[in-house]
């Protein structure tokens, strides 16, 4: 187990190096000059040239890459082109916000999604089943922008229960977490349902029922646990999606997360910030993947890592 984790961590290094190299190259291959964007559309050429030199963008690509990697090894992600603050500082503030939102959304999605999926599967073809699955479909397909604004309109402006946006108290977290979690909730509900249905048809379930176990015990102890493996996979994948795909939610609710920072930085061609943000998200993604793989062995003792 321990050696497995070490091996996985070592494997993460080439993955991360690949990610930063790709991002480094992609940023420089797309058209758009950071110096020009920074100087603004009204700027004379001399200003653009001066900024380009200041940013070191007039040096050869290989030199820029070498400097970047060398600084990276020393833990220096560089300085934001726009704010002139260290990238680590920009991310240090944004990352907790993103993790907070993603975790809260995932918690909501797991609780709601599992419950809905179990209810649906155990009462297949009932009104409740149809209602839940239609609900799940809506959750998956509803546009985040519209859903967020409607939630805001009803619960913040009309009812005054929650603040309209921003980060701070637990009450600030509720609406964005539900909005962001809606899709994951739907996915988990559907996955739980189909996986449960499959397990419920197994012989050992019939045996369990035959030997007089309660419905509850059969469903939760025997069926659910065996049905969880594909669900855990979906949870892991969705969590990655929540990290990187929260841009719309963050924008609607003015949540100061990494997603928005990344999109703004791409627009401004703030190379160091984009590189730093992608690196951090790749790191978290890798970590979540590892945790999911480890979680399999808890859910299903037959799976072992040696």
């Amino acid at each position, binding site marked *: 187990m321990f050696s497995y984790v070490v091996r996985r961590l070592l494997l993460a290094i080439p993955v991360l190096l690949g990610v930063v190299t790709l991002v480094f190259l992609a940023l420089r291959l*797309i*058209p*758009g*000059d*950071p110096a*020009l*964007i*920074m*100087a*603004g*559309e*009204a*700027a*004379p*050429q*001399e*200003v*653009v040239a001066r*900024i380009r030199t200041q940013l070191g963008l007039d040096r050869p690509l290989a030199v820029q890459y070498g400097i970047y990697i060398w600084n990276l090894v020393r833990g220096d992600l560089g300085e934001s082109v*726009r*704010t*002139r*603050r260290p990238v680590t500082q*920009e991310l240090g*503030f*944004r990352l907790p916000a993103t993790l907070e939102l993603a975790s809260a959304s995932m918690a909501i999605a797991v609780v709601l999604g599992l419950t809905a999926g179990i209810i649906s599967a155990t009462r297949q073809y009932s009104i409740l089943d149809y209602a839940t699955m239609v609900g799940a479909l809506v959750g998956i397909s509803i546009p985040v922008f519209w859903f967020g*604004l409607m939630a*805001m*309109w009803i619960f*913040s*402006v009309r009812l*005054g229960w929650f*603040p*309209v*946006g*921003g*980060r701070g108290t637990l009450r600030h977290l509720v609406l964005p977490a539900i909005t962001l979690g809606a899709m994951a909730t739907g996915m988990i509900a559907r996955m739980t349902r189909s996986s449960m249905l499959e397990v419920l048809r197994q012989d050992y379930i019939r045996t369990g029922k035959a030997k007089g176990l309660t419905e509850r015990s059969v469903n939760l102890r025997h069926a659910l646990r065996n049905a969880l493996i594909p669900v855990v996979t979906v949870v892991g994948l969705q969590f990655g999606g929540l990290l990187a795909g929260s841009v719309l939610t963050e*924008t*609607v*609710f*003015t949540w*100061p997360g990494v997603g*928005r*920072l990344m999109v703004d930085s791409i*627009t*401004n*061609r703030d190379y160091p910030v984009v590189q730093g943000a992608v690196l951090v998200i790749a790191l978290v993604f890798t970590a979540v993947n590892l945790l999911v793989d480890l979680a399999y062995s808890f859910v299903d003792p037959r799976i072992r890592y040696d």
Partner: protein
Amino acid sequence: MRKVVGLCLGLFIVGALAGATPRYGGTLTIAMEYDPSSLDPLVMTDTPASNVFMHVAEALFRLGPGGELEYLLAKSFESSEDGLVWTFYLREGVKFHDGTPFNAEAAKWNLLRFRDKASFGPTLVKAITDIEVVDDLTMKVLLKEPFAPLLVHLAHSFTGFLSPTAVAAGVNHPVGTGPFVFVRWIPGTELVLERNPNYWGEGPYLDRLVFLPIPEGGTRVMKLLAGEIDATTVVPPDDVPIVRADPKTDVVIIPSLTIQYVGMNCQRGPLANPLVRQALNYAIDKQEIVDFVFGGFATVAAAPFSPGVFGYHAPGPYPHDVEKAKALLAQAGYPNGFKTTLRYNPGWRTLGAEVIQAQLKVVGIDVELISMEWGSYLDFTNRPVDRSETDIYMLGWSTVTGDADYTLYSLFHSTQFAPAGSNRSFYKNETVDALLTAGRTTPNPELREQYYAQAIELIWNDAPWVFLLNPDHRYGVRTNVRGLVFHPNFTIQAHRAWLDN
């Protein structure tokens, strides 16, 4: 009182007529579309930065309600006969927020640093060759040649003075002399200013001034309706009725100093022919774009910049006349039209470009729409003339100094061809060049107005642009806010604002 449109120059002060006794204290929260790109005047370029910076730092002058010059850190000035030496007498007893005294040395250091290192340095104060400190509160600014817009350029908020001590110590936020003091800035979250208790003039009523960056228009409106913010920039046109329907909120509509235009490459393809460019001006129904895309909150442009700017002269607008457009095209040798491209960056321009495409189809011009992300778009339109592949493009420009020179020289003088300047249409007319040069080097205002009127007539006729529209600003505000100034140059000024119960 409500829904009054600002008069003449469009400045608007909310609650100015209410006549109640101002109340001290409280926090005023203003939402903006974006965070400032920076608060360092050396790299600042945008309106959010200007909005914040002007409360913290002050320049020699500022532009008042009617676009007239108001004294800030300058008390008076005089200029030599030849317009080459300007003597400024500075306000006494002014201190920066860190206690450093403001004097001629500080002013000189700031202006020369701005000229040499700031993004806006070349645009605003390049004309200054040197500055002499005469005594503690007097300085002489020396120019190589007369530069008529000098004073309005010294009223640009970006030229605001910073404490030399603080800059030398590497303080990374602005330390100025303004009515508010910088407290903290958490990008993406909030920017907080606090009242300056030692302000030299009439100080603010407010204790705190907070700016929030909220990119989504719907969210700004909800926040305003929920009372979480007191004012906001840019209410989406569709949301104006909602904000007006609530008795606690209102929308302030004022004309801007901005022109939105459709530029044409005067050196390439059929568009090199002025008759063709005129035809496009007749073919495009500007009013439809005003109504359909801007919800009516704009005016069809009648000049290359907006009314209220010094030197304004209106030969237009070009009427919508399909037959005339067709006749001009035939005369130019394109009776069956031609194929061309229109590039733009997404936003309202997506819809605008589609309308234009449909309208040009009517006169036989087949337009391919190419949407480009902002960075790529700037890059593309900024290529030098011999490598330019631009045909038609859409951009906007704000005459923030309130002086014709700021727009005409940068956009229509042939020395300003991109990338050196902002003449992205590669428009060249030697008479116009001469008039614009005369306009900036002639001190006499009446003469300047004449030069600009002549230049505008020529530009209008040569039609390097389709002169589209002047958009209105749409601000949202809570009705208990008093004394907040909405300036046509897109700044919100809270110096004397206060909150009623």
